């Protein structure tokens, strides 16, 4: 049987929400304008089995303040998912379907242990701690792409520098120990790094939160789970980029994350 989804079959995307998430509409529209059939799915629908994760081709965790960001950012959503849906999530990841989380979604993925997962046992190996600046950092940042095998970066070039918006107060990526960090680096999982406009890794304000190794986005070893602190879904079109009046009409910087995932699913599933 030939691999890939026929063009007449819509790719189904679940944009997962609960109380406090607030980027689901941007994510929904980004996937819709990428030619898929997205759906905003409340966590309760999965918990009560009226929706099933296995029915979707792509899973997206949007940004926001899930569970009010109480306890820690992403902790409440992760704890609920862990108690009822962890096996389903692990299965989705293991069969290679694309899973992505931006900002609060990244925090949820890390709290769940789905990334970095250097050890392969879905243990908690990292955290997104409060920014060193102790401020809510909301602005545009430069990011250097080191695409590796990350499926969400297929439509980028290696070494390319892009600009995306950030908006977070808990984005400082820290690892449990030096072995985890070494594993991330040696496996090329640190696919997106805070940089200056030339792609050089620098300290604050280029690195807005003090992340280890300037890590802004992280893919698992297999390349199908991406967590990223910036918000690609907020710049699907170039007119929502901060300097759009000084640039020529083109695709938004964020759109390629979505087109990459869509082309991957069309080819592989």
């Amino acid at each position, binding site marked *: 049987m030939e691999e890939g989804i026929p063009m007449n079959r819509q790719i189904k995307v679940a944009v997962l929400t609960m109380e406090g998430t607030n980027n689901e509409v941007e994510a929904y529209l980004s996937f819709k304008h990428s030619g898929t059939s997205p759906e905003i799915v409340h966590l309760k629908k999965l918990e009560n089995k009226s929706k099933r994760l296995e029915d979707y081709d792509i899973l997206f965790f949007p940004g926001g303040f899930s569970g009010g960001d109480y306890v820690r950012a992403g902790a409440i959503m992760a704890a609920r998912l862990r*108690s009822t849906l962890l096996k389903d999530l692990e299965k989705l990841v293991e069969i290679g379907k694309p899973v992505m989380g931006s900002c609060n979604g990244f925090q949820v993925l890390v709290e769940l242990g789905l990334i970095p997962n250097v050890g392969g046992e879905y243990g908690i190996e*990292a955290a997104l701690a409060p920014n060193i600046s102790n401020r809510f950092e909301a602005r545009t940042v430069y990011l250097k792409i080191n695409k590796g095998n990350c499926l969400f970066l297929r439509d980028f070039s290696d070494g390319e520098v892009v600009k995306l918006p950030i908006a977070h107060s808990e984005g400082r990526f*820290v690892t449990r120990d030096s072995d985890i960090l070494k594993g991330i680096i040696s496996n090329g999982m640190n696919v997106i790094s805070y940089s200056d406009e030339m792609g050089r890794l620098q300290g604050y304000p280029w690195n807005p939160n003090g992340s280890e190794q300037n890590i802004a986005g992280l893919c698992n070893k297999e390349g199908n789970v991406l967590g990223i602190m910036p918000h690609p879904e907020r710049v699907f079109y170039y007119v929502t980029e901060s300097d759009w009046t000084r640039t020529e009409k083109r695709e938004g910087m964020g759109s390629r994350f979505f087109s990459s995932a869509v082309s991957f699913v069309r080819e592989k599933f």
Partner: protein
Amino acid sequence: MVELRITVTFKKTVEDSEGSSVLKALRLLGYENVTDVRTGKVYFITLSKGNRKTAKDFCEKLLANPVINECVVDE
């Protein structure tokens, strides 16, 4: 009825940026003898039944991320 008091703090090795801001503010207020501030959260939890061992589960499953936090249950 069991009453629990659980304190979650950052590990000593983890930069506590809120603590650093409070330290700076206190020194600006003239308290120059303040040399360190660490912050944390205290949870007061009441159980209808059960025992204090449950508190360890609360720490592991929700209240603390073992990478950055310490979770202490008052005896």
